């Protein structure tokens, strides 16, 4: 279970993480807790899966290349093909969605050619067409996820 102090930590530090030698001490000062406690809470939130990491979100296409891919997989093969797709280190999100195109995943690599090579490899191994839906324009200003606690 997460408590109010965890929620503040999550709500307030999704962006503008301090670029100073001791950033966790600075967070601790703003939250009125000790540095050790901030580090312990973050480690616990990471262990419980609430936090993926403390790190950077890179702007798509400024570092490397990526695409959103979709496949229409026969339901009885879905798990096997999803596992095959997830096994690629270049795949970072992989979801089943409720549509005829039922497998959706993001492929990211250093170059567009590497991204395309992964898509082609998946298509040739599975015999299923892979739709390539690269980002053309990004309209969202990312300030992290709004923690609306009710």
């Amino acid at each position, binding site marked *: 279970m997460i408590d109010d102090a965890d929620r503040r930590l999550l709500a307030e530090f999704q962006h503008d993480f301090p670029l100073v030698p001791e950033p966790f001490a600075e967070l601790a000062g703003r939250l009125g807790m000790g540095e050790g406690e901030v580090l312990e809470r973050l480690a616990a939130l990471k262990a419980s899966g609430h936090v*993926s990491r*403390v*790190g*950077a979100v890179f702007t798509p296409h400024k570092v490397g290349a990526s695409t959103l891919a979709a496949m229409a997989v026969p339901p009885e093969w879905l798990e096997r093909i999803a596992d095959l797709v997830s096994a690629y280190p270049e795949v970072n999100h992989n979801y089943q969605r409720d549509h005829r195109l039922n497998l959706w995943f993001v492929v*990211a690599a*250093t170059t567009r050619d590497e991204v395309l090579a992964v898509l082609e490899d998946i298509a040739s191994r599975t015999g299923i067409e892979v739709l390539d839906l690269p980002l053309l324009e990004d*309209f969202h200003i990312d300030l992290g996820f709004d923690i609306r606690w009710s």
Partner: protein
Amino acid sequence: MELSDRDHALIAALCDGLPLDRRPYKALGERVGMCESEVIRCLEAMTREGIIRRLGVIVRHHELGYRANAMVVWDIPDAEVGEAGRRLGGAPEVTLCYRRPRRPPDWPYNLFTMVHGRDRDAVLAAIEAMAGREGLAHHPRQVLFSLRRFKQCGARYGKRREAAE
């Protein structure tokens, strides 16, 4: 900003996140042969140049109780998609808003938004309200809920395939 090999090495090291250490930039720098102040300077420059979009705590929606995750796709005429994208990109319900290519005949949709919520009904109601408010209710759209998450992690950049193996 032209990224150097050192920048790429730093980006690759950062893909796993900052070490939960009192001096995380120092610890990160030790992995890539940079000193603490150089790591901080590089990250400042990448933030200023828009290469890093956000530095901070990256949460997982599902674990936080936002169990319903919908990809809402819209078919908006090309002449109007820029304006629609700016409206939806600024909507409080939306966590991502991208224009992507159509792939006719199977896939006519050109604008993609993500909406998270506690359950399906809440998400559907939020989408309906948002479409009306932003004047987009008359455009064809579909809501694709996620049924299962097979994999979720940060993107791995900076390392070339052959180097990663």
